[in-house]
């Protein structure tokens, strides 16, 4: 088979497939009714925001169907202890990852700092940082949010929550073992797949148990229509196990094929796991917080299937100029550019939904995090598409520019969205209000200004570094030395982000330990009583 034929067939298959899937849903594509997008509201609830993280005085009374609200409270109650466990783990990994990341960042401009111990050396602590984010913070926050949202969307109680609890325990045990082995110096040697495959077995078992309640709950659903968030979360929970399993089969992958597999996995774990979990959160919480359904349900269909068809094939752009087949790299570049389509669909939808509702940003911490996160999704995706072009990649590949881009995506987009979701969900599952609203503002500004400093400095520094490396008249050391001020600025930005996380975690602990006034009589507060019963 000629490379051109492979290239064309993969591309045409994607386009035809996308057309087919949208066509197969056509009955609702042209349907002017917005029934699909209203499924997240109870009868009579549209126009009523739900924002448990906002100050009490700004929360309107619900004018909705009592029976439906009671059913939703039962759905929340069925997930409360489980989501609480996921979020507690998420907090721990967020702090671990922040400490490891900040240490690694400082080491790049202070290379003689903390050199006595192998586990603190840059190569290991950086890997601990990445894995604590990739398998700790992001999945714990994202899956916890998914487990909270899915029963609400299916209007039923969670079925099989105990499997997910056992799964989460296994998952976290695996991560502790994994980070321990990386710090100790046992690694499989592939980026994003460093954790030894023996430990990966535990992740597979844990992940399967976490996914099981989704299937059990889907079979018990009380709604005919599956809301857009269910598509993203449902597929993410099927995509990840396939990715992780195929990537970690010991002895299967050989030679340079391991590199293509590596970036098939590395990019898809971002695009087909974290991204859909975060987008699903935006699609649920954003309309919920403003009390208005999303503007265009059809655009969300395009956004979803576009992501599903194009994103999977973009990983080869990590190997531009490398010793891999040219057709594969070209295919990935083309599909990277095609990603602009679903991203534009999402962006237009978010913009149209928010139009006229921006006042809600004043009161709603959830919305503030979600809006900024959504904007960063657009920004990082468009940036990523252009970074895949050979002309741009020649400069930015192998530089800190890529690191800046990765943090725009996984922090500016994914993490901010999960912060927003957690501010919404935690009062619902604990039955307690956030005691210090100002701490939420502090967290928001530290995180957003911190990541802005991080991104801008490394983007400039990385670009200059890439330009210097392409100019053979300049010695290599010049490309190193010129990045130093930008690396220091990155540490400042990173320190602000880490401080924001400490405040976030302290606020959470305060919420749990607060007595008296901050307790709120609230139908969806079974965990508070359940916890006291233990």
């Amino acid at each position, binding site marked *: 088979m000629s490379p051109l034929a492979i290239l064309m067939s*993969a591309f045409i*298959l994607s386009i035809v*497939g996308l057309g087919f899937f949208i066509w197969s849903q056509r009955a609702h594509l042209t349907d002017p009714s917005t029934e*699909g997008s209203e499924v997240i509201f109870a009868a009579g609830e549209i126009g009523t925001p739900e924002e448990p993280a906002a100050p009490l005085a700004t929360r309107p009374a619900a004018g909705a169907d009592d029976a439906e609200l009671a059913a939703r409270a039962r759905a929340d109650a069925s997930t409360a202890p489980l989501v609480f466990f996921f979020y507690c783990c998420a907090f721990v990994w967020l702090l671990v990852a922040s400490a490891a990341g900040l240490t690694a960042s400082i080491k*790049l401009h202070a*290379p*003689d700092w903390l*050199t*006595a111990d*192998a586990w603190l*050396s*840059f*190569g290991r602590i*950086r890997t601990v940082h990445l894995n604590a984010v990739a398998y700790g913070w992001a999945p714990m926050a994202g899956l916890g949010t998914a487990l909270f949202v899915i029963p609400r969307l299916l209007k039923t109680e969670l079925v099989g929550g105990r499997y997910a609890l056992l799964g989460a325990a296994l998952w976290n045990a695996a991560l502790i073992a994994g980070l321990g082995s990386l710090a100790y*110096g046992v*690694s499989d*040697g*592939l*980026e994003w797949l460093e954790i030894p495959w023996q430990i990966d077995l535990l992740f597979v078992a844990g992940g399967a148990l976490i996914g099981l309640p989704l299937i059990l709950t*889907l079979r018990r659903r009380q709604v005919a*229509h*599956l809301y857009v968030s269910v*598509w993203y979360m*449902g597929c993410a929970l*099927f*995509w990840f196990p*396939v990715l992780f399993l195929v990537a970690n089969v010991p002895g299967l*992958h*050989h*030679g*340079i*094929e391991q*590199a*293509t*597999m*590596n970036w098939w996995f590395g990019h898809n774990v971002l695009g*087909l796991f974290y991204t859909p979990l975060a987008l699903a959160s935006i699609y649920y919480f954003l309309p919920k917080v403003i009390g208005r359904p999303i503007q265009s349900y059809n655009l969300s*269909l395009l956004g979803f*299937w576009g992501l599903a068809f194009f994103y*999977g*094939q973009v*990983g080869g752009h990590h190997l531009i*100029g490398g*010793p*891999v*087949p040219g057709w*594969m790299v070209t*295919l*990935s570049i083309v599909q990277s550019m095609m990603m602009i389509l679903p991203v534009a669909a999402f962006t237009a939808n978010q913009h149209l939904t928010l139009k006229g509702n921006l006042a809600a940003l004043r009161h709603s911490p959830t919305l503030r995090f979600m809006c900024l996160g959504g904007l960063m999704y657009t920004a990082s995706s468009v940036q990523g598409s252009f970074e895949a072009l*050979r002309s741009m990649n*020649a400069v930015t590949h*192998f*530089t800190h520019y*890529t*690191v800046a881009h990765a943090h725009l995506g996984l922090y500016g987009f994914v993490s901010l969205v999960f912060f927003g979701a957690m501010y919404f969900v935690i009062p619902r599952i604990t039955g307690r209000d956030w005691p210090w609203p100002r701490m939420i503002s502090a967290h928001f500004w530290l995180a957003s200004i911190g990541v802005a400093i991080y991104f801008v400095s490394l983007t400039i520094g990385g670009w200059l570094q890439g330009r210097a490396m*392409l100019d*053979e008249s300049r010695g290599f050391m010049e490309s*190193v030395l010129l990045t*130093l001020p930008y*690396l220091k600025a990155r540490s400042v930005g990173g320190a602000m982000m880490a401080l924001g996380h400490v405040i976030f975690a302290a606020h959470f602990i305060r919420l749990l330990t607060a007595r008296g006034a901050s307790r709120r009589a609230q139908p969806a507060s079974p965990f508070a009583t359940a916890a006291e019963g233990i």
Partner: protein
Amino acid sequence: MHSETRLILGGLTTLAVATAALVVLPYITIADSAPAPGLKPYTPTELRGREQYIQHGCVYCHSQQPRARAFAPDAKRGWGRATVAGDYAYDDPPLLGTMRTGPDLMNIGARQPSDQWHLGHLFQPRAYVPGSIMPAYPFLFDVRDRADEGETIVALPPGTVPEGEVVVARPAALDLVAYLKSLDRSYPALAADQ
């Protein structure tokens, strides 16, 4: 959308297409590329050194994939010709890398064949390359007042360690240096693909 079966099947179909393009086809075409003529298998010492390279995360700052002349001046920096699949036949896994915080190392063995340079540079990079931001790896060495017989003493630039002390390379450091010196793909590449 009303059918979860259609949703999940659709989702898995899209992933199957991607897997076919990025994993299955490369598996069929390049997984078993023959070793390039001129490429030697690693010795046991070099393989142990490769483990050191992996466990200390050298790959996060050093690439092992010089790019073509049309793309970047890698060859003019002395990093070597663009690599081909056959150059990695004994690499499990290949350590292509994604960053050049430090220089490409695919041909570091040809560029810098001195054991002593590598050992000293690992002990304190800034004693050899002023302004380097590479971490120092003192835990791969012992600093003592004297060396035992058969041990490798590292000759360092004056002032790197206090007067009267010697730096002795641990086996891990010697293995790592053996691996670094084995990184030499300076044989011609054209034959490798054919």
